[in-house]
């Protein structure tokens, strides 16, 4: 899909900060009354002045470094001027020349199966505007209410180069970015509206359109897919794609043209004199030294330290919570087996239930892996235990094993069942001897019935084969 060119602008709320960007108001407004987390500064009352939250800049530098950006010596704030009801000052304090971080890159898995760097143009800081609440749909609402609780939330805008070539790659980039942000403990992606994406998309030789303010990664994929189809169809019909801003309608899954707010935008950027230039070069070494291990490095270490496959290591490190969960389990149970069970089973079960790993006990997981390693339970039994625990049927693996009789049959019992089954299945033995490998499955089935499923089919298969070969 080299003929599709996509660039992203991602607005990330640095919502792990305690106070807003330029005032002391709390960032913890999600369950509060509208307009209850406000003060003269974030309401832009006449005479109020912004005071920069230094911690926000520190968070921004952290992200910049993690995205392999160059951090500017000195960073400046600018005013971006435009009129909108969610913007109480009539301008947004943002950055323009001398943004916090420039020229970085992060690696994603491309559609061709090869990993490659996606270039970051810049990452700059700005304040979030308030939130508009329409009484009904945007085109039919009789009135709109404004909630300024969000106003002044610290935002980091990450701008990529147009290096992405499909909706799937855009998704991969966003997943990776989110992963890094959560590793850095600057961002909580579970909060509503915490990451909003503007996507620029064009087909080779055509003009680009910008799809504004898409929330949710699935939304980005859908919006881009629709837009590609739309632009391709226009090209096919020899209609020129015009450069414009479009809105993604999440209900109808289409993009629609929105007339721009005031003709062509001229934001009249100029320096915000109420803030002074901030020399940040000296902050960088300490922040760099304190950076946590990031996803790619952790993935590499997991492969080396725990002898995992790269796929498993990648799966376990994409979310910091899962990585930490894995390491806690791996400290108490065989790491390789733990990796398989967490990456291949637990994550799937969690996804299916829309739950996070927070809801599962590390001790229980270690217990399950250990029981598997010691052949005390079968693989089916282990899956059963995980499901029961997630669905609240049972308090611990041990208790579930006992109450459901999932304990694996002792070997001599299995051995006995195998001998009996082989003795009882003369026809099947004969078929096998005649060359039918599949005949063994019949005998395995008999053994499973005799042991009421508590034996492992794989093992039974091996034992049956050995027994028949002896004859």
């Amino acid at each position: 899909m080299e003929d599709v060119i996509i660039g992203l602008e991602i607005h990330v709320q640095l919502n792990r900060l305690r106070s807003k960007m330029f005032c002391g108001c709390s960032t913890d407004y999600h369950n509060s009354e509208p307009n209850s987390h406000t003060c003269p500064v974030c309401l832009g009352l006449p005479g109020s002045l912004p005071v920069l939250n230094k911690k926000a800049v520190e968070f921004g530098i952290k992200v910049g470094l993690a995205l392999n950006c160059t951090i500017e010596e000195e960073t400046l704030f600018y005013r971006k001027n435009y009129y909108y009801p969610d913007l109480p000052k009539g301008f947004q304090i943002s950055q323009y020349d001398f943004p916090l971080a420039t020229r970085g890159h992060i690696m994603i898995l491309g559609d061709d199966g090869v990993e490659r760097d996606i270039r970051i143009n810049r990452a700059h800081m700005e304040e979030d505007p308030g939130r508009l609440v329409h009484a009904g749909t945007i085109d039919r609402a009789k009135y709109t209410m404004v909630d300024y609780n969000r106003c002044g939330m610290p935002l980091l805008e990450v701008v990529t180069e147009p290096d992405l070539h499909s909706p799937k790659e855009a998704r991969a980039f966003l997943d990776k970015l989110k992963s890094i942000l959560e590793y850095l403990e600057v961002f909580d992606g579970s909060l509503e509206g915490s990451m909003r994406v503007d996507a620029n998309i064009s087909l080779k030789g055509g003009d680009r359109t910008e799809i504004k303010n898409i929330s949710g990664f699935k939304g980005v994929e859908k919006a881009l897919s629709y837009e590609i189809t739309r632009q391709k169809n226009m090209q096919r019909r020899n209609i020129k794609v015009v450069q414009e801003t479009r809105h993604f309608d999440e209900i109808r899954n289409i993009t629609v043209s929105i007339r721009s707010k005031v003709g062509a935008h001229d934001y009249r950027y100029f320096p915000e004199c109420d803030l002074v230039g901030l020399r940040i070069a000296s902050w960088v070494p300490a922040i760099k030294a304190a950076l946590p291990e990031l996803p790619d490095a952790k993935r590499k270490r997991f492969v080396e330290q725990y002898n995992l496959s790269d796929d498993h290591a990648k799966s376990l490190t994409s979310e910091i919570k899962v990585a930490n969960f894995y390491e806690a389990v791996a400290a108490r149970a065989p790491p390789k087996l733990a990796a398989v069970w967490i990456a291949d089973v637990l994550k799937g079960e969690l996804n299916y239930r829309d739950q996070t790993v927070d809801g599962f006990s590390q001790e229980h997981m270690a217990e399950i892996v250990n029981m598997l390693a010691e052949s005390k339970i079968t693989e089916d039994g282990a899956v059963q235990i995980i499901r029961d625990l997630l669905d609240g049927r049972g308090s611990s693996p041990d208790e579930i094993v006992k109450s459901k009789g999932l304990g694996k049959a002792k070997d001599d019992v299995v051995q006995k069942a195998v001998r009996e089954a082989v003795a009882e299945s003369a026809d099947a033995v004969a078929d096998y001897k005649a060359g039918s490998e599949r005949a063994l499955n019949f005998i395995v089935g008999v053994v499973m019935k005799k042991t009421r499923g508590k034996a492992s089919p794989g093992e039974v298969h091996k034992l049956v084969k050995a027994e028949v070969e002896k004859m």
Partner: protein
Amino acid sequence: MLMELKEQLLSGSAEEYLNKLFLKIEKSPLNGFTSLARESALQQAREFDKNPGQGRLAGVPIAIKECISTKGIETNCSSNILRGYIPPYDAHVIEQLKAEGAIIMGKTNMDEFAMGSSTETSCFGPTRNPWDYDCVPGGSSGGSAAVVAGGEAPCALGSDTGGSVRCPASFCGIVGLKPTYGLVSRYGLVAYANSLEQIGPLTRTVEDTALLMEVIAGHDERDTTSAEGKKRYLPIREGVSGLKIGIPREYFGEGVSKEVEKAVWDAINTLESLGAAWQEVSLPHTKHALAAYYVIAMSEASSNLARFDGLRYGLRFGEDKDWHTTFSDIRARGFGPEAKRRILLGTYALSAGYYGRYYLKALKVRTLIKEDFLRAFKDVDLLAGPTMPIPAFKIGERINDPLSLYLADVFTVPINLAGVPAISVPCGFAGHLPVGLQLIGKHFDEATILQAAHTFEKATPFHEKTPAVI
């Protein structure tokens, strides 16, 4: 003055004094006050009479310019668009005044959003000059200057973006100081041009200005541009012997009225006779100051005034239409012609394609002007010249000729561009109208200009003269 007033109030009654002022204001022809905080002020006065307390301004009434936020008292910048806006918080300077026991007596008239030097662009109509009712009081802090000169308030606060404290001080024959940028917190000052402006006192004597400065100056963490530390100005050092005064060549000559020039030279001679030495200096970029000032101030204003859309406070009409129509309507009807002119010009100057030609160029000129001052201050301790090139003019005489109004700011705006402090003190008369002497100091060296101004004041009778209205 204020020291003596405090003594009087302690032996007499603050309530009585305040009532007398209110009575006078009611009958006043000046139109200096826009609103009075009668109840809260009298309440505070009664409390003072019972228990005066230790505050440095205990019991002293003060008038506040309309653009300084006062909790619970309408703050409208003399603009229709902000009518009805009552701030939920006090400006830093108001907190400081209240902490020292001062009584906020009311708000004073100004040019709309401080855009003017005559107080004629106010939505409340012009304020009159106490020395001649047909003349303007200067501006934009014309209300504050007129009520102090007219004896309706013992002292006042104004704000100075391009001369807005010094010009009316000069026209009304009182003392006005524009502090070094960063010395007084701007928290709560409704912004016109935020990189230029400072709040400053308007008083009858230099000592009173020093006292108010001790109260309002000092670091405030809510204003990032606010300087560290707290300064002392009292007692003011007396005498000027040994002081070297620079006389900027560019501040005399063409455009300066003969009477003003004479009064200022007489003042320089007086200072010399008191022991100071003077020498001519040059501020070669002065001729570019006005253009640079107006580009910067209007650019900043176009952005600072963008928040007035009527959505959260201020002017609002009955039925709302869609967002664009509603806020455009409110702005069209809320702003006066001068505010509109400056918003439009500022918007233009910041527009793509013009930004480099106007705004960036103005910033470069600003740097050159600052360097002019720094160079001059290598040789001298302070500079002296006229505050205004002319005495107060007639109401209505220049209002329809904005360019001639802008030209009157020629000696005040360079000071704001450079960020240095300057004081205007009465130094004589042009006919029956007062003339102001401007003394300009080094950054954060208010002490030296207060010293020279105070010494001059002690040696001359001008500050004792009061208009007939008193």
